[in-house]
């Protein structure tokens, strides 16, 4: 049976091979259009991150309304992958292989969906700018066509620990982290920085994605006598953490990542417990009065879908892709993947809603700097603690 199958396959192969090889390569660029794709979970457990992909959509709409880029409009193909890598691969392959193809991938939420398509994209030389996850996988080793924006989680953790020890005088720092890549990277960075400062963590507690009863976790943190806790979890767990901590009368200095930098959201969903929290931020704050942010905030009501919220991740969907737009502008009318990659490599200190972004030959981590901020005792006002800072 198998032999027969093999024979048939060989026969079919010999008949059809020349045909399939001659299929023209799809570049996703026509005279009037540039086709760009992104996946983002619109449903499922990761649905709150889906606003990244919708933010990108708003940026492209604004660009098209202003006349497009060198006479071409951007056609944006956003699809829902439910944070399920099997669906991400299917969606990406479908778009890339269908007329007229995909020129480049913009952002794309999540480490695991991204990893599932990384090799496929890189083998075909399809540019990919600004994956929405602060993972080391994008830049180790650096890929010709992959341009990362999101600063590394580990760097954020290091900066926070340094601040807690050196500026706040905290001695016993506990680490509370999600048991996924995001949490593990934050955990690793924090432990490394503590080691450099000659300290050890007061306690390291991990939390599973599905857990909704965090009392034993919080009891452990409390028993450790920590005076500061680095909280590297998702928004839902942050809410449960603060509520449980309040019930256990445990009030350390909380410090947390850019994932939880959406102060109005956190303030609402914690029911007002988001007080006196130190957090890292990878972008300008959504309510900041800087021109790079205000131009989008002003346009937001016109473009946003009903039910959308002007939050950090919606805005990050703009920020992760701004360098791509800059690259498309610099590449000029004669747009090929090579000219685009060369244009991307020429970007230095580009400043949009994110921190400064620079690329160069072999340099694929665009943004390294983050800053720290703190909410006040009412949880409504945010003060910046540090300027944009690079670790090391």
């Amino acid at each position, binding site marked *: 049976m198998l032999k027969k199958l093999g024979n048939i396959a060989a026969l079919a192969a010999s008949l059809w091979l020349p045909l399939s090889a001659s299929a023209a390569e799809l570049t996703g660029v026509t005279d009037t259009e540039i086709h760009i794709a992104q996946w983002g979970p619109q449903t499922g457990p990761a649905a*709150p991150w889906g606003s990244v992909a919708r933010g990108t959509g708003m940026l492209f709409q604004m660009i098209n309304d202003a006349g497009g880029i060198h006479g071409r409009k951007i056609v944006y193909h956003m699809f829902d992958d439910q944070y399920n890598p099997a669906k991400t691969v299917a969606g990406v392959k479908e778009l890339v292989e269908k007329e007229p193809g995909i020129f480049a991938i913009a952002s794309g939420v999540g480490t695991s969906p991204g990893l599932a398509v990384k090799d496929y994209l890189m083998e075909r030389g399809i540019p990919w700018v600004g994956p929405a996850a602060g993972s080391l996988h994008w830049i180790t080793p650096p890929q010709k066509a992959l341009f990362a924006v999101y600063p590394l989680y580990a760097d954020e953790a290091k900066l926070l620990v340094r601040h807690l020890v050196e500026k706040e005088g905290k001695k016993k720092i506990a680490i509370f982290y999600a048991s996924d890549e995001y949490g593990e990277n934050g955990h690793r960075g924090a432990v490394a920085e503590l080691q450099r400062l000659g300290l050890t963590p007061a306690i390291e507690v991990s939390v599973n994605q599905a857990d909704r*009863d965090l009392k*034993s976790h919080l009891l452990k943190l409390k028993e450790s006598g920590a005076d500061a806790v680095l909280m590297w979890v998702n928004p839902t767990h942050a*809410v449960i953490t603060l509520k449980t901590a309040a019930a256990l009368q445990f009030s350390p200095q909380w410090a947390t990542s850019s994932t939880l930098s959406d102060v109005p959201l956190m303030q*609402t969903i914690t029911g007002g417990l988001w007080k006196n929290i130190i957090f890292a931020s990878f972008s300008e704050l959504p309510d900041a009065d800087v021109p790079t942010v205000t131009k989008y905030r002003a346009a937001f009501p016109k473009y946003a879908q009903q039910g959308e*919220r002007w939050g950090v991740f919606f805005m990050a969907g703009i920020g992760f892709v701004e360098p791509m737009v800059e690259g498309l502008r610099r590449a000029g009318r004669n747009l090929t993947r090579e000219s685009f990659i060369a244009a991307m490599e020429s970007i230095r200190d580009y400043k949009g809603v994110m921190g400064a972004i620079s690329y160069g030959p072999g340099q694929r981590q665009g943004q390294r700097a983050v800053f720290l901020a703190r909410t006040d005792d009412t949880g409504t006002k945010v003060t910046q603690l540090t300027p944009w800072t690079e670790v090391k």
Partner: protein
Amino acid sequence: MEFLGALPQVMFSGIAAGAVYALLALAMVIIYRTTEVLNFAQGDMAMMTTYVALAMIVGSGLPLYAAVPLALAFAAGLGAFAEFACLRRAKEPSVLGLIIITLGIEMIVFGFASWKWGGEPRDMPIPLSPYDGITAGGVIMSYLELITIAVAALTIGALFLFLNRSKAGLAMRATQQNRAVARLMGIRVRRVEMFAWALAAVVGGIAGLLVGPATTVEPYMMWEPMMKGFAAAVLGGMTSLPGAALGGAIIGIVENLFGYYVSTAFKSVVPFAAILLMLTVKPSGLLARHYVKKV
């Protein structure tokens, strides 16, 4: 506090968590022992109920004491409708087929709620600060936890009385034991089954309303409690009400003890290991009579 000093606190936390599992377990048991259906939609029906309460409090500005009964009435309607529209329509259903039907209901409810209210977590406002509580013997008990335990205990007690003392309870037990004979005795078994679904949805809804304020309200809020509730129901014997309550408490306590004293990493799977051990000794659960199949 030294090693064992935290024990009472951990036990209390375990009971507070277990109270919610017990309610969900009861809801599953009510349906299972009347209609022999494993209702995997229980958790998401509770989630929907919580959202409805939230919408009435935040959207319509109703006070809590008005919103909760209305939400529970909605739950009863939802449960009854699910039975009437789906389960009752099944022709010659197999056990597995019924499970798939409840999974289908679960998806529909889940899809509807996430469409209506979006995926972002929300806060359930209650007129109670999370900081408030009492301390007795070194154990910190927040009011919310105390209320959770009290409401669960009251619900369990009321259910127990209702199902064992009232005519409707008798009819439900009769339906479970022999559907055909119950029918011959003049019990409208279909109505009884619909009632069981409505009752279960209310009990599950209460669990949802207790989980909401302690955590967040979001489409996935009931997945983990629901799984634990299912485990608790099986632990207690799947047909036994006191068993379900006991099972909930045991699971809450076991996972909190393990989480605190051993590791938080495997906290959520430890109850299942405990169940496996228990079932190898008592294959029908803790409090159910061992059922031997007749040939």
